[in-house]
């Protein structure tokens, strides 16, 4: 396909509609949110227009610092777990026959059709004492009596990994399918065992893909709101939960807006970091 740089204004025409949608549904609301984040809260009513940094200053408290830290840590952990599970899985999946791959991919897509609420309550049942998987362990003699596995940090992590895993696999799949299988065979003829060849050749050849996937899952998990509340203790709540709490229950729009802006900035910074890493790789 031949690509020419656009010359006249008319060449940009196909961009007008998406640009309009982006402005109306993203740029405008986000600008309002940024503005609100500098407003002054009015405890009696809503907020009054102003330009103060009070809302951002509140991040400096230990409480918000620790919630932010926890949110970041959880998102990183979810991203790492997802890629560590999904990468070998997807790699092995691409080695199966076409029919097997289709069945798996359709299954994964159907998981995507589940809402966060359904996933949350399904796992809360699975982790419960009365009807959970521990009953199964008791039945096969692994445990003495059923226990409740929630609310806990591990329950939150499991739920979120479960939710993000199909996305991870679907993002990794095209890159792994396109990977030249002879790279691995070449490594084997040069004396590398299959496992060693996998880590020497497949992983580095797909470094960019892996980093991009990590970032994607991280951003996805950073916005998680429902699962920490259904599966976790209050100490496992993320910044998103706090934002909702401030915005809806405490009626503190300016502070909620400030936190939301902060969350978006962190996401953007990470996306920028990925692009930078990608460029460095290409320049080599």
């Amino acid at each position, binding site marked *: 396909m031949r690509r020419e740089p656009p010359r006249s204004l008319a060449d940009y025409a196909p961009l007008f509609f998406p640009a309009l949608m982006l402005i109306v549904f993203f740029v405008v609301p986000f600008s309002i949110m940024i503005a609100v984040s500098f407003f002054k809260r009015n405890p009696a009513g809503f907020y009054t227009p102003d330009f103060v940094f009070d809302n951002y200053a509140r991040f400096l408290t230990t409480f918000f610092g620790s919630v932010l830290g926890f949110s970041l840590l959880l998102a990183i952990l979810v991203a790492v777990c997802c890629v560590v599970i999904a990468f070998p899985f997807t790699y092995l999946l691409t080695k199966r026959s076409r029919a097997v791959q289709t069945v798996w991919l359709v299954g994964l897509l159907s998981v995507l059709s589940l809402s966060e609420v359904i996933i949350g309550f399904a796992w809360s049942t699975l982790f419960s004492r009365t009807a959970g998987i521990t009953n199964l362990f008791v039945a096969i003699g692994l445990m003495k009596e059923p226990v409740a596995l929630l609310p806990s940090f591990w329950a939150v992590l499991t739920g979120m990994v479960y939710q993000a895993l199909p996305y991870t696999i679907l993002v990794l799949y095209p890159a792994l399918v396109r990977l030249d299988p*002879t790279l691995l065979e070449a490594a084997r*003829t040069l004396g590398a065992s299959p496992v060693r060849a996998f880590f020497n*050749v497949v992983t580095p050849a797909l470094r960019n893909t892996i980093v991009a996937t990590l970032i994607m899952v991280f951003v996805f998990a950073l916005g998680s709101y429902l699962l920490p509340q259904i599966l976790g203790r209050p100490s496992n709540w993320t910044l998103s939960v706090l934002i909702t709490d401030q915005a809806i229950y405490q009626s503190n729009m300016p502070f909620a807006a400030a936190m939301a802006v902060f969350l978006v900035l962190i996401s953007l910074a990470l996306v920028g970091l990925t692009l930078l890493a990608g460029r460095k790789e290409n320049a080599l």
Partner: protein
Amino acid sequence: MPGLSINSITKRFADFAAVDDISLSVPDGKFVCLLGPSGCGKTTLLRMIAGLEEPTSGAIVLDGDDITRVPTHKRNLGMVFQSLALFPHLTVGENIAYALRIRGASKDDQRKRVDELLAMIHLTGFADRPVAKLSGGQRQRVAIARALALSPKLFLLDEPLSALDAKLREAMQVELRQLQQRLGITTIVVTHDQREAMTMADLVVVMGKGKILQAASPIEIYRKPADAFVADFIGITNLLPAEADSAGRTTVLGAAVPGVALPTGSAKATISIRPEDIHFSSPGAGAIAGTVSFVRDLGGTVETFVEAGGTTIVAVATPRERPNVSVGQAIGVVLPPESCVVLQP
């Protein structure tokens, strides 16, 4: 017993045999070309020798050791893939040193060997370049150097030159052959290009439908093809019907060809004769009567197409040998008996 021997090896995929009971013995230090059309099983055979494909039955013996069940990474072989399979994230030097790194060679040893190999492939000073910045021919050389880094017992190449343009390919064929001669390494190349096989090989193995059709030196395959498929696949040939007349003499398209004997008991056969072996004469007794239908003057050679008895005979000569032939001319085609090969039916 040095060398590679393949003992009645078979590879079945579901209900079809890609390689069907093949036996082949490759003496130490020889250059073998597996030649055949796509789907004839040549690549599968090579991959079984490399251990990338497990044979359904049979054995592969290298220097007296049965390596049929030895995993690829313990076979001590070098292989060049059709896609070359250079590691995109490593430099030229790191690619070549990969096998040494796997075996824990020191940095100094690695560098020394890489420099040696780069000198061998005429790419001295390229060690730190990224693979993506190389031309097609340079990548080819790097793939060869990487495969030879550990001085393997067996050098395998799967359609190694197919990505190069015609001129470069011809040059690389010569270079590859000279390299193999210098190193004296047992080499097996898979190709579908008969020129490539003729240029490089000590032994050409023509395959079709999972079986060996003929295994012989290039010139023997060319001069004495075993059957019509081999004759047609290697170079250009004329396949002409021969029959015995009432007096028992062999005739081809109505002209007697004395001295060519048909297989005993059969009155008909096919003979193969190469275009450069055909002579022309004035029409008359002892020659096949034909009409020139087309002349292709390529400068270095002239190809003359003659319609005779319902088939087209191609003859090749230099322009000096055959100056005055024009389309529509009636002509006599002479088949020297010593150049006619009677093919097995």
